[in-house]
């Protein structure tokens, strides 16, 4: 948490235990960008590296709902919200995911909605 914060988000609430207590977060917490990056790593290990992923054009929305604290164990739930073919590229489609991160107490700490670009099984068989 603090290694990431030192490099990318050096604010007191992410780096300094004492100073963090005086902030709105009430104590040390992870940078939201760190939680996003960890989510990326979790989905890479869970399925993206073993898929036809072609990256993502962006992220519809991220909500940082609750702070992630040191030693919090987080769990990720992925829900496929939509699957559609690309109009412009017959070799790929978009898979829209709703991701929800939970802490050990079962509280939702972050939600993230994004569409991943995925290669299609047999592009040649797809009518243009």
């Amino acid at each position: 948490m603090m290694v990431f914060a030192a490099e990318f988000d050096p604010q007191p609430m992410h780096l300094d235990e004492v100073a963090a207590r005086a902030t709105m977060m009430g104590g040390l917490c992870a940078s939201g960008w760190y939680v996003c990056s960890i989510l990326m790593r979790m989905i890479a290990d869970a399925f993206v590296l073993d898929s036809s992923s072609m990256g993502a054009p962006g992220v519809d929305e991220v909500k940082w709902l609750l702070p992630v604290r040191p030693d919090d164990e987080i769990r990720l739930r992925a829900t496929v919200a939509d699957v559609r073919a690309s109009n412009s590229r017959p070799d790929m489609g978009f898979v829209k995911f709703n991701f929800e991160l939970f802490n050990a107490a079962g509280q939702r700490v972050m939600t993230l909605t994004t569409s991943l670009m995925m290669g299609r099984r047999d592009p040649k068989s797809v009518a243009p």
Partner: protein
Amino acid sequence: MKFFEDVVVGERFEVGRHTFTTDNIKAFARRFDPQLFHLDEAAAARSHFGALCASGWHTAAVWMRLMVEHQRREDDARRARGEPVAVLGPSPGFRELKWLKPVYIGDTITYSTEVIETRASSSRPGWGLMTIRNTGVNQKGEPVISFISVAFVERRKRAA
């Protein structure tokens, strides 16, 4: 940070610039986004990106770093002028993040931020919410990243 009351919709400022190197692209990708087009030049050349490119999360995280440094410089200047400094609070999130073009090795990205909305916080009396549009443009002038984020900004204390 300036106080919420002094934040003006439409104000725009350059946040900073960063050059993405092979080493820092791969170091980020190894930790957080180990897809081959972020890690391996040969595999990236065969991908639809055509060459090794940075994880989009890396491009976003660099904005955060530059924003924190920008605010720190601004706050130092305020203190030097004897002005009070307001607290820039946490962010409840962001939306409409678009990775518009890949960020390739050696690209220098210039980040800018524009205030697009301000409103008082209904749940936290001492705070306002500032909505900003953040963009990154490469050395050719092509936009590579854009997103809209929200952050809490401290309000000026009312005179008793």
